[in-house]
């Protein structure tokens, strides 16, 4: 990984040349990313509550971490975040695979192109606006969600007013927004299957299931792992949609980890505790990132 640079006869650059090109970006990320993180580390060791600033901000050792780790709400929100992931991920994978297979099927070129292009729209839609839209769609009195279930004779339902409904509503919006992500990844996997092999297999077997299992599956697996890791990182980050749609409520029914830390930090103003929580989240995230990078960027050198 960090072997001495192999000297090439044609290299034409000095030892420090790369440094000059890299320095601006590295310095910027160090100052904007690392310095505040160290600041947070210091803050997490202090009692740092802005609403009680008259007490000062004394160092209290690891007390914030002890408090966070023994705080049932912190574990509950982490658990709820995991539950959210387990609810949306299978749906996004299943629907995404179905859509990718539909789009990969030959024929109907124009319609396929139209459907494929439309997939980009949810991915680019401002998350905060998705949340606002969710509030309109799932409104108890005039939301289209109730209009839709009304077609089947189901009585109107106060989606955002009760725990299960609100949780379902944020899941549905997430599935709408991120299924296209899975679909596009699967689709690019499917398009990697060499044409001759796929043609031969199609002649050989009429069964689409056999084609999928024996020919296409190996090409889908790398993308599948990428999806799992990236989506889990995204769910740990998920804030905008939930914040605009439910503010974590009703009660704490939709309070995912990022929403909870934001509340502790910026609505309760207990920055010491919130910093400790954020750093614990950072540790989880770094582990995820390392796993991801181990899997996908090994080929770089």
């Amino acid at each position, binding site marked *: 990984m*960090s072997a*001495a640079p192999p000297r090439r006869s044609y290299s*034409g650059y000095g030892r420090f*040349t790369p440094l000059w*090109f*890299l320095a*601006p*970006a590295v310095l910027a*990320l160090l100052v*904007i*990313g690392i310095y505040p*993180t160290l*600041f*947070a580390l210091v*803050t997490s060791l202090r009692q740092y509550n802005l609403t009680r600033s008259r007490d000062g901000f004394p160092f209290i050792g690891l007390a914030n971490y002890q408090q966070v780790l023994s705080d049932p709400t912190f574990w509950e929100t982490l658990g709820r975040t995991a539950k959210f992931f387990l609810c949306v991920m299978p749906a996004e994978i299943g629907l995404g695979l179905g*859509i990718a297979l*539909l*789009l990969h099927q030959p*024929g*109907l070129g124009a*319609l*396929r192109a139209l*459907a494929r*292009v439309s*997939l*980009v*729209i949810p991915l*680019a839609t*401002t*998350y905060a*606006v998705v949340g*606002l*839209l969710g509030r*309109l*769609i799932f409104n108890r*009195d*005039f939301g*289209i969600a109730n*209009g839709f279930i009304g077609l089947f004779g189901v009585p109107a339902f106060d989606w955002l007013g009760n725990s299960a409904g609100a949780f379902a509503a944020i899941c549905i919006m997430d599935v709408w927004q991120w299924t296209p992500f899975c679909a*596009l*990844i699967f689709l*690019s996997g499917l398009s990697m299957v060499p044409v001759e092999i796929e043609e031969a297999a199609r002649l050989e077997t009429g069964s689409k299931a056999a084609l999928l299992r024996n020919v296409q599956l190996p090409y889908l697996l790398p*993308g599948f792992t*990428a999806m799992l890791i*990236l989506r889990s990182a995204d769910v*740990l980050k998920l*804030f*905008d949609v939930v*914040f*605009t749609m439910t503010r974590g409520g009703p009660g704490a029914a939709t309070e995912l980890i*990022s929403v909870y*830390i934001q509340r502790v*930090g*910026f609505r309760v103003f207990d920055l010491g505790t919130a910093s400790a929580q*954020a750093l614990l989240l*950072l540790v989880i*995230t770094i582990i995820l*990132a390392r796993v991801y990078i181990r899997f996908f*960027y090994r080929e*770089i050198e």
Partner: protein
Amino acid sequence: MPRFGRLLHGAGLLLVFAVTIFPFYWMVSSSFKTQTDLLASPPVWLFTPTLANYAEVFADQKVVGAIVNSLIVAVFSTLLAVVLGTPAAFALARYDFRGKSDLWFWFISNRFISPIVLALPIYLVAQNIGLLDTHLILILVYITFILPIVVWICTDQFRSIPRDLEEAARLEGASQFDIFWRIYLPLGVPGIAVSAIFGFIFSWNELLYALVLTRRAVQTAPVVATSFMSGYELPWGKIMATGTVIVLPVTIFALLVSRHMVRGLTMGATK
């Protein structure tokens, strides 16, 4: 293909299209409804469109100001990320040096960091140095997620540029900087453009940092859209018109880079 299968395929594709586009359609159509039509139960599909909501949005200084703020922040953070990121990408694509892959990992791993992790300390630091509620702080913070994308996409692009060009230039006495400036930058324009579009989309859509680091002066569009959600009777028409105004430019940008969408979102894990 048998006709039935073809029919089923077509129906499936139409369903995908309809469901994908529906919330977007619902937002746009709601933005043309009067409050009475919006509050109708069951919801109405056919109505006489009105432009009143848009008139209200564009007359609202807060919304117009927020869109200007969002534009300033998105354009300058993207520009800054490109200025900082392209030389780094050049170094990663062309030089061998100690610790190169570690550096690369570090750049990429910024993609994973939750904004809340940085938002807290940056809030404290910004408060201490008086940068709260300025464009500058948002521009600087947004670099943390735009720079990794620029570095990733541009490194990939620069690698695909043939080395012969560089050899020829060196024989004529070009310096390393000349090679970067005269060969790699111009030839890398497609990759730079794609990464800049992604940078713009991500910073335009960002909510958490903007919510935490700004007060009155520099509220961005997503923050203002969110702020309408208080009070008893919500101005749904205006909210949906604001949403449409916010989403439209990024939708157009996203359609421009639709071929690269997966690469941009996964940082190249899948080609």
